[in-house]
């Protein structure tokens, strides 16, 4: 029996992880949407979804059921086969990209030695779904949306790729697991070694996932819904799922490469070990808030659901606290790495997504030519300079024996200076263009 388990383990564990991802991700995407709507409502002085479940907690499920039951419309003139396949491509590649990402040291489908390269490559395939979907719909809005999306993705993929190269130079490996391990060894997350690289990746990843202020492919006020215009019901839901999965993927890449993955803040410092209790404490606070709100719910069933959510949070707090409370050496204590790793990873992903949403509520939308200007004339050159800067820092550090701080400080300042110069030059060119435009 034991040998059988040992034999099956290399197959079983990834299989279980894969099933969990495919099964849970749609739900998670649904709740990210709910969270986004709630946050948006909060920033816009309103309440957001409140009807389905307490505080709209069951809204995503209701939405999913509605989308499943909707009539499936395929336009008469559409290219049916491609129309049918396109959303599948999008959602499949988005989920495939999750395969190489490590959510905590325990939860990973495959620790590929080309990890990040795989994620980037697979992620870029998602554009096929969008372009084919837009083209096969046989509608002007869809076509324009798809073309915009293709151009945008290609442009920003370049910048994002170069930003990642910067991080990879520091890590010296492509495997997601080893990247995080390197950050642990350094004792510092790469965001502090390469802040400019992180910034470039953050901007480019927003553009890659078609989120505001770069949501031109689906700019509602211009192109109705872009490439998704002709889609409805569950096919539309698949596109939606792909979009939110992509958000999770880019957030996971950023977390892995720049934010220290599953590492606790100050992971190597003993003095900060009390942070280990933070996860359970956070859960308890949320649970307390849930119980505080229970008597204020108008309907019995809502009270019950909210209380259940509170209990669930307490259970989670217990699970997260258990490894800290039992003596070291037992199986439960060993679970700390996996559980707390997953917690910190998901927390960082969540914060990254929060920034995404925050930007969406705050900024107007770029115009297409402005988007291209920003991509090609600012981010791409800057990302190349950033790579050179990090290379220089590594040379200074490894071969000339400079300390970390002076080496990376110097190159960051240099890169920022280049960024300032690029911005200034762009502004000047813009002004000249405007003057020429007036004469013409």
């Amino acid at each position, binding site marked *: 029996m034991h040998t059988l388990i040992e034999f099956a383990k290399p197959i079983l564990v990834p299989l279980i992880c894969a099933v969990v991802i495919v099964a849970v991700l749609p739900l998670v995407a649904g709740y990210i949407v709910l969270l986004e709507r709630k946050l948006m409502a909060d920033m816009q002085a309103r309440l957001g979804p409140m009807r389905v479940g307490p505080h709209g907690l069951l809204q995503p499920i209701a939405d999913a059921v509605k989308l499943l039951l909707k009539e499936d419309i395929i336009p008469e003139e559409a290219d049916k086969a491609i129309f049918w396949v396109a959303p599948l491509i999008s959602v499949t590649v988005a989920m495939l990209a999750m395969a190489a990402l490590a959510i905590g040291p325990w939860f990973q489908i495959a620790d590929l030695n080309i990890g990040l390269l795989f994620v980037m490559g697979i992620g870029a395939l998602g554009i096929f779904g969008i372009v084919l979907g837009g083209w096969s719909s046989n509608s002007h809005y869809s076509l324009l949306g798809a073309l915009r999306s293709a151009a945008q993705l290609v442009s920003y993929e370049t910048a994002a790729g170069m930003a990642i190269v910067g991080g990879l130079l520091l890590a010296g490996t492509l495997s997601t697991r080893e990247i995080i391990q390197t950050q642990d060894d350094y004792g510092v997350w790469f965001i502090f070694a390469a802040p400019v690289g992180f910034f470039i990746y953050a901007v480019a990843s927003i553009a890659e996932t078609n989120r505001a202020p770069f949501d031109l492919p689906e700019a509602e*006020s211009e192109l109705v819904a872009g490439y998704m215009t002709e889609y409805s019901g569950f096919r539309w839901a698949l596109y939606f799922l792909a979009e939110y999965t992509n958000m999770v993927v880019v957030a996971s890449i950023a977390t892995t490469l720049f934010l220290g993955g599953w590492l606790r803040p100050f992971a190597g410092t003993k003095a900060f070990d009390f942070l280990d209790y933070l996860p359970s404490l956070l859960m308890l606070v949320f649970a307390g808030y849930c119980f505080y709100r229970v008597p204020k719910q108008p309907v019995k069933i809502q009270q019950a659901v909210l209380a259940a959510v509170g209990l669930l949070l307490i259970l989670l707090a217990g699970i997260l606290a258990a490894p800290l409370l039992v003596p070291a050496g037992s199986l439960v204590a060993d679970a700390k790495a996996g559980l707390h790793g997953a917690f910190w990873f998901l927390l960082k992903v969540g914060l990254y997504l929060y920034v995404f949403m925050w930007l969406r509520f705050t900024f107007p939308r770029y*115009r297409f030519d402005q988007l291209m200007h920003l991509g090609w004339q600012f981010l791409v050159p800057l990302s190349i300079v950033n790579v050179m800067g990090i290379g220089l820092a590594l040379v200074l550090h490894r071969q000339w024996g400079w300390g970390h701080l002076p080496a990376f400080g110097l190159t960051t300042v240099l890169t920022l200076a280049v960024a300032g110069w690029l911005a200034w030059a762009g502004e000047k060119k813009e002004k000249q263009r405007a003057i020429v435009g007036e004469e013409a």
Partner: protein
Amino acid sequence: MADERIPFATRAESTVLGADEIILNMGPQHPSTHGVLRVKLRLDGEKVIGSECVIGYLHRGVEKIAEHRSYQQFAPYVDRMDYVAAVSNGLGYCEAVEKLLGTEAPLRARVIRTILTELQRIASHLFWLGTHALDIGALTPLFYCLREREEILKIYEKYCGARLTTHAFRIGGLQYEAYDEFEKDVERFCTPFDKRVDEYEALLTENRIWVGRTRGIGVLTAKEAIDYGASGPVIRASGVKWDIRKAMPYAAYDLYKFEIPTGQNGDTYDRYIVRLEEMRQSRLICLQAIENIPAGPIMGKVGKVLKPPPGEVYHAIEAPKGELGYYIVSDGTTQPYRVRIRPPSLINLEAFDKMIRGHLVADVVAVIGTLDIVLGEVDR
């Protein structure tokens, strides 16, 4: 779809790459054409090389209806033209008929009319700002704007029971006396309002994306603006200091001090700045007016049955969107012989093709937004 009769741009100035141009029908069902405007766009890639606005989807024959209603009966109909600024419409009509009758409303009525109309200007501009920002992709200002607009609508509701199509004024004055808390409510709204405008400015005015999206877009020079007969914020943003409140004062505007904000470039950004400043000025007018509302009657001496002497009259007011004019011909009976309405939205919309040509699809919504059209008024 490709209609040969469309007076689009000539072939010579069309596509750069020699590729086929796309004809894109924007609307009548499109999220940001503000109602049922249909814009036929000729596109070279994303560049607009020609456009034509197709209007009339909301045509209700308001002018014709007027010929079969008595003067009082027609008053509620004008509220349905620019339904975002119903009070202003009513003011224009009532004053036009009063002019035809040769009377004038009592001073108290005129002052209250001024306050309500200026509040309406703020409400209309708020609604414009929210939707315009939404078109350009900023989601949040809309809700802040609607929050403040709600306060104004509440004042209307308290005053006359209706929020949107108010029919607040009567020919000869007002039907309702201002309610007890009226001044207090107006003051409560106006006092913190400039801080609220600052809030919108914080979100947009110096936002790089906003400036990039609006500056240099949809430029209308002063001469062009005059040639097109543009009015309101559209012409003022082009640098023409033309405001009927100052040029031909009506209601009680000659009693109050206010500035006419103007722009220089006549682009979308200037129109934004001008409208924001107008909101601040309207607030100042309201604050001046509530300080001293004169006592007296609110209804002038006009009969139950209105029979204006034969003749004709043109009366224009500065509606939130521009010059709103009523040209009324009377044949001495109880019903007007002809009512012709000059809607500012329609005249301003005529400049659309000039403003959009050479810009991108994304700018179409910015330009439609900046013209501040209401299709109920364009089509009547």
